[in-house]
């Protein structure tokens, strides 16, 4: 159990964001795609907005040879390309870049770690970072145990039981494991050298404002929570749709597929947040306890369910925004006979009191018509005694929590059309973060890196969450391995997925929302 530190007598809780421990952030895989696109812009924006500790340094760790200045120049280019705020603010960057360094080493080279330890000590002296470390593992999963072991061997990961004056934390990128067994194995290897309180398994969806707002929306508004159950909700749809294909990630996607890339992590996080019971407090432990309970309550899929509640798909050629795009099998670094899924639709039931009989439909895919991630709560129909029109029911109320883009919340209600007759028309009440608060919400990685430096693990996945999620997903993977698809590719790029997906939900008398 995590012991919370007593409050600092000079800090006012909830008001000061500057009272944050000094530290050095070390990024493993510093020349990789994720670092340039996400991590560095996030660190830059945190610094620019004054959210990093004044005593801070950042070290890039990678195998390629380069100087500190070369590394800084590359990062500047990345910020200018990928940051939500650009161009780089020169006056800020001039000083900030002085805190950024590069360290070349192989991941298995003891000398490299020895040199890193020595270099970090120098930085501690120069920037008064007090020995606090965040290690960000933006590398292939096979390197996770090795790096953690080496860090421990070279004294860079501290023993939580004996070290109280400084801390070390490790952020681990997804995927955490490949299936149930490998996730358990990875956890076993990592836990030899890393305490759970030092482990921050990142799922960047949890860093998104709208995902964080889910808890506020549910538990700070009494009108919704009182209806958040089987009595009022007909079903829930969770969609993670991307219009892009796999881009340059052919190798990665051939190994992973959509289930591992999106469903096992992002979608299951969204599912557990939307379905969880109110936590006893807002502590990381309490929230994560409730999320795990949801995952434990998901009804395991039977053999019959694999046929009727799971649909996989792979995109063929089609059109995105009017432009012809290649099918998955024609993408770079993809096997022309690949059976990897780029689309997945699932139906789950959560066997607990709150959700008895309420289906949760999940769908995710690449090369769908638009980029859209949302959770839609479809309420039960109003009793059909009144206001039927030609025997047709009115539309159900739908509450939509848009995760991205156009972050916000909308509620569909029925309304009388003005005039003497009384036709009823669905209308939408729409709240948009951008319109209301007038500022670009911070990127997920900004929030997550900041939370890690603060030592708050609420927005990171705990080991038992990951393991439980794999327990749900692994049987699907095993079934697929035993029954290769015969109809791939089975949906056109730019469409809403294979027709079997529509059939799956229509058998229940429902339909996917047209986004």
């Amino acid at each position, binding site marked *: 159990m995590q012991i919370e530190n007593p409050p600092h007598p000079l800090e006012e809780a909830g008001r000061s964001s500057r009272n944050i421990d000094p530290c050095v952030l070390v990024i493993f895989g510093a020349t990789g795609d994720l670092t340039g696109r996400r991590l560095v812009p996030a660190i830059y924006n945190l610094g620019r907005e004054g959210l990093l500790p004044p005593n801070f340094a950042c070290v890039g760790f990678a195998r390629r040879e380069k100087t500190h200045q070369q590394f800084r120049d590359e990062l500047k280019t990345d910020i200018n390309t990928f940051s939500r705020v650009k161009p780089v603010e020169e006056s800020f960057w001039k000083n900030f870049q002085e805190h950024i360094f590069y360290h070349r080493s192989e991941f298995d080279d003891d000398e490299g770690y020895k040199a890193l330890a020595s270099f970090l000590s120098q930085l501690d002296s120069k920037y008064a970072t007090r020995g606090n470390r965040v290690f960000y593992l933006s590398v292939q999963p096979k390197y996770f145990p090795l790096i953690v072991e080496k860090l421990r061997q070279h004294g860079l990961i501290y023993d939580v039981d004996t070290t109280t004056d400084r801390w070390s934390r490790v952020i681990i990128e997804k995927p955490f494991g490949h299936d149930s067994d490998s996730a358990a194995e990875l956890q076993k290897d990592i836990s030899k050298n890393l305490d759970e309180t030092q482990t921050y398994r990142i799922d960047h969806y949890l860093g998104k404002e709208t995902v964080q707002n889910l808890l506020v929306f549910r538990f700070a508004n009494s009108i919704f929570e009182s209806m958040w159950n089987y009595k009022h909700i007909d079903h829930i749809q969770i969609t993670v749709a991307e219009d892009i294909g796999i881009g340059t990630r052919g190798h990665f996607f051939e190994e992973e597929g959509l289930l591992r890339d999106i469903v096992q992590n992002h979608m299951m996080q969204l599912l557990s947040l939307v379905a969880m019971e109110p936590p006893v407090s807002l502590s990381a432990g309490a929230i994560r306890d409730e999320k795990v309970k949801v995952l434990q309550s998901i009804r395991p899929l039977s053999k019959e369910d694999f046929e009727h509640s799971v649909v996989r798909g792979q995109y063929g050629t089609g*059109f995105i*925004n*009017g432009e012809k795009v290649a099918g998955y099998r024609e993408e770079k670094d993809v096997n022309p006979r690949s059976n990897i899924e780029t689309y997945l639709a699932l139906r789950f039931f959560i066997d607990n009191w709150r959700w008895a009989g309420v289906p949760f439909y999940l769908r995710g895919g690449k090369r769908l*018509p638009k980029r859209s991630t949302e959770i839609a709560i479809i309420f039960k129909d109003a009793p059909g005694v009144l206001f039927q029109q*030609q025997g047709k029911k009115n539309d159900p109320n739908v509450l939509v929590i848009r995760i991205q883009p156009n972050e916000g919340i909308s509620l569909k209600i029925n309304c009388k059309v003005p005039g003497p007759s009384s036709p*009823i*028309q*669905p*209308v*939408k009440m729409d709240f948009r973060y951008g319109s209301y608060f007038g500022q670009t919400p911070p990127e997920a990685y900004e929030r997550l890196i900041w939370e890690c430096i603060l030592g708050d693990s609420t927005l990171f996945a705990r080991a038992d969450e990951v393991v439980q999620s794999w327990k749900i997903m692994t049987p699907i993977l095993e079934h697929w391995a035993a029954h290769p698809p015969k109809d791939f590719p089975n949906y056109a790029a730019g469409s809403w997925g294979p027709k079997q997906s529509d059939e799956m939900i229509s058998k229940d008398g429902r339909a996917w929302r047209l986004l």
Partner: protein
Amino acid sequence: MTIQQIIDPAKIESELIQIWEGLAKENKMRACLFNLIVFNIVSARTDYIRNIVQKVIDKFPCRVLFISFDPEAPVPYLKTAISVVAPAGGEGGIACDYIDIGVSGPDLQRVPFILLPHLIPDLPISLLWTEDPSQEHPLFVPLSKLAQRIIFDSESADSLLSFAKTVLALKSQTNIDIADLNWARTEGWRDLMASTFDSAERCDQLKKINLVKITYNAVETPFFCHLKIQSMYLLAWLSSRLKWTVKKTSKSFSFEFENGIHGAIEKEEWEKLGPGTVISVELATSDGHIYKSARIPTQYHTVDIQISSSLQCELPYQFVLGQTATGQSLVKEIITKGTSHHYLEMLKELNQLDRDRLC
């Protein structure tokens, strides 16, 4: 309200946002009640269709996705354009998005893919299919799958019989609501008939009808040339409601039903009245009653109703037909749910009434 901008399909949403950011200074509010997809083949009717879409916007703000297909363009093309359109007058604070998709040649197959990301979720989708549905078209199936309601205009039908068969087949195979502009245009007359025979005594007279004579306006315009359809609809409606059985039809639009009932459709020419609009309906019964309803030439929307028999002549009275200004029938059809049972029965009756392909 804003000038149409031709843009890349990938930039439709972002450019619309930019336009709206500019309009924020004018306190214009983005409004939308539903999605209206319009499919139209470029012709003399296109301006007319755009005009009736504007009438819809005047009444109900919606996101318009207007597809114009030009099968005769010498060079294939695919163009998308956006604009923001306000209701006529524009004094209200609202306006809505108007997305134009112009296409010719093989790029037609791309249109559903362009359109799909721009439908506003959770709001109803109506498809105004302005072409003849009995003619196969590659866009009809993909677009109709998106819509909860399809609005046809039988004015576009080459054959009314084929139109009726296609619409009935569509209705039996899908759950889509169907509406028809020509059916909506006859609504006022149907209301008039129902109100004329509203008492039990009058209702009894319906069984004795032995003559129906309908006149219509035969003045053509470039976008209206199938002028007898509304009259045929009205006759088929009466026939289906009163369970008449067709015996014989003739090219002169004279119809014989069982039990000695005779029907006729005749033309008149009223310059200022909408083409094909019903001008008068005359009913006679076997016991000598005559029910004559005719528009007043100086007040088009008002019908003068004269009921007489060999024994008495009642004082004439007037009935105001529903608002029949251009586009209003479309407005009404979009908002009303379900498919009219009377309409479907009327289409079935057309299978008999128009079996010789008169229209």
